[in-house]
């Protein structure tokens, strides 16, 4: 309590039971403690809906021995996952069949890929030839498992045109 304030109280003859400054400080503290607690609680609650681990199947897909895929200029559609396996003279490649625009499944047209949803077109190597897709179809890493099967790693992208010599 400041001397000036004490003087005021003495002059008016009324004693102030609680210092206004102190009351102000306490109510402000209470307000900010409440706000802070509720904010932290809200952040904690909001944290939950965002999954920490993405559910889903393994990103690695086994497709049997390389002999299943004879050399051909046409890509083979893998039904279990939305991808194409291409095996020509240059080697193996795995190209995604999921349109990079809004996630529809593209179909092979002979001279590339076409999306049925919004008309995106891709060349034989997955490059965009007609919008609205903004990026090319991704190519995935491939490897040969110890048991002699082809493995496509659908979580590992490789540059367009990368070929794998398997078997």
């Amino acid at each position, binding site marked *: 309590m400041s001397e000036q304030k004490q003087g005021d109280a003495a002059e008016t003859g009324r004693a102030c039971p609680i210092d206004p400054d102190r009351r102000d400080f306490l109510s402000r503290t209470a307000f900010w403690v409440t706000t802070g607690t509720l904010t932290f609680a809200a952040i904690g609650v909001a944290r939950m809906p965002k*999954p920490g681990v993405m559910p889903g199947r393994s990103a690695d897909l086994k497709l049997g021995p390389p002999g299943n895929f004879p050399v051909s200029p046409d890509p083979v559609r893998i039904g279990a996952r939305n991808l194409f396996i291409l095996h020509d003279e240059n080697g193996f490649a795995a190209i995604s069949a999921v349109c990079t625009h809004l996630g529809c499944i593209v179909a092979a047209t002979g001279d590339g890929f076409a999306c049925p*949803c919004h*008309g995106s077109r891709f060349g034989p190597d997955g490059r965009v*030839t007609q919008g*609205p897709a*903004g990026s090319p179809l991704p190519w995935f890493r491939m490897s040969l498992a110890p048991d002699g099967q082809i493995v496509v790693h659908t979580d590992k992208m490789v540059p367009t045109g990368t070929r794998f010599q398997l078997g």
Partner: protein
Amino acid sequence: MNPQQQDIPSVGADLEQETTGVPQPDGREEETLTGGLRRLWPNFRQATFRSGRARTGRGRALKVFANLFLHIHSTRTHLYSLRFWTTAGLGIAAAASFVVAAVTGVLLMIYYTPSTALAYQSIKDIHYTVPTGRFIRNLHRWSAHIMVIAALLHAVRVFFTGAYRRPREFNWLIGLALLAVTLGLSFTGYLLPWDQLAYWAATIGSNIAGSPRELTDALGVTQHFDPGGFLRHLLLGADYVGQPALTRFYLLHVMVLPLALVGLMGIHFWRIRKDGGLARPSDAQLRAEGLLPHPGRANPTATVFEPGPKKTYGLMALVRGRTPPVGKGPENTAPSWPRALRAEMAVAMTVLAICMLLSLLADAPLKEIANPQIPENPAKAPWYFLGVQELVSYSAFMGGLLLPGLVVLGLALIPFLDRKTEPAGRWFVPRPHGRRVFVRSLIVGTLLVVGIEALAIRLGWIRGWGRGTAMEPWLANPPQLLIIFVNPATVLAALYAAWSLWIYRRTRSTRLAAIALFTCILAGFVVLTWIGTVNRGPNWHFYWSPGDWPAH
């Protein structure tokens, strides 16, 4: 009876009294078991409704404010607010269709199972074996459609009558939130049947939520900053549309969004009263234009109320704001019970009749069970999103997220830029300029959207423009950033904004500029929705009518 009690008028004083007992000479009622049993029903009715038939103005007022459900009304309603074309009943229609959807929704929940393995079969059960299941599901579907239409038209009505103006700007924001929740309810409901339509609409919708990646990819910063991926994961709970997505959509559809809607509706209705009822011009102006019934049977309160000369105090000092009409008589009003309630029930019954008729005529669709390997072709969202889907077919991020976001932001800003309060409550205020700007903007807006769509459909967009010219190699593979920022959606938005600014430069009126922009957006929405619904066929190719689609 205690003499003091006689002086205090009870709540039911102006209402027809029920006889509640055997009157005795001293005013008391004899308490007998048989008498109590005999009057069980009248006494129960008295306890529940506290009143009989309202015969006086005061009795009608008591009917309204002594009832929890009715007291969102003021006791008297202005005659102008009761005219059909003041509101066209659209807000009530939206609320009534929500009630239909809520009741039928709870009934559907009895049989529906939110699991990817069982959802489709349970809808089939509801459709084919559950008693009245097909009709109830149809009612749910149609009431949802009608709710969207009514909410959209209600927003259009409020805008063109200038009813968003001060002091109603906060309620305009609540209204926009209600519209967003309504669309969210429809969209989350779309996934639940787990058929092909549902699966691919949800895939496209969640990828639109993830479309900021289009921009971050083009800038090469997705690894560090990925709002698109965050939104998508939050919505789907996974990288794909599967059980986690179905669980989340179900939770949003039956719990989170309906609760949000009911809460916002409560605020919306309460604000109408706090803001002084529906927006309307002054009585003097209404009388000058002949919009009020003449004094007489149709308008017994037409005479202007003279405040009593003996009262020298006012309540004004105690109660600020526009709520209590202190010092003002009930000129040109009618008792809300029964006039306003009768009008509202008429709208609600009409909505119910339309829902039932449509449910008898047309079944809600159910396609084949969801197949993640074969997209529905064409894969279309619900009709009210097809305008957005048409824009999305040029750029997912711009057409699906940024421009709709800007439109919502612009709508929210309107009452804060147009700060006048008068005139409000009449169509196309200020007259006659408002109507003129509306008609011109409707023509300009329609021509612009049709022109740009025709150009994009006929010639394609950027890729393909330079065929046979020196520019071909560059135009065939333009930078993605160019397509994101220059596509039919952004060009259309820029032209609409330019038209609105030109109107502002000529008239110096934010209201007229807002009418220009709103009308253009409305024209664009209608035309794009039409193109997306009718003219887009397999592979999103253009067809004049769905009859021209090639057979599969």
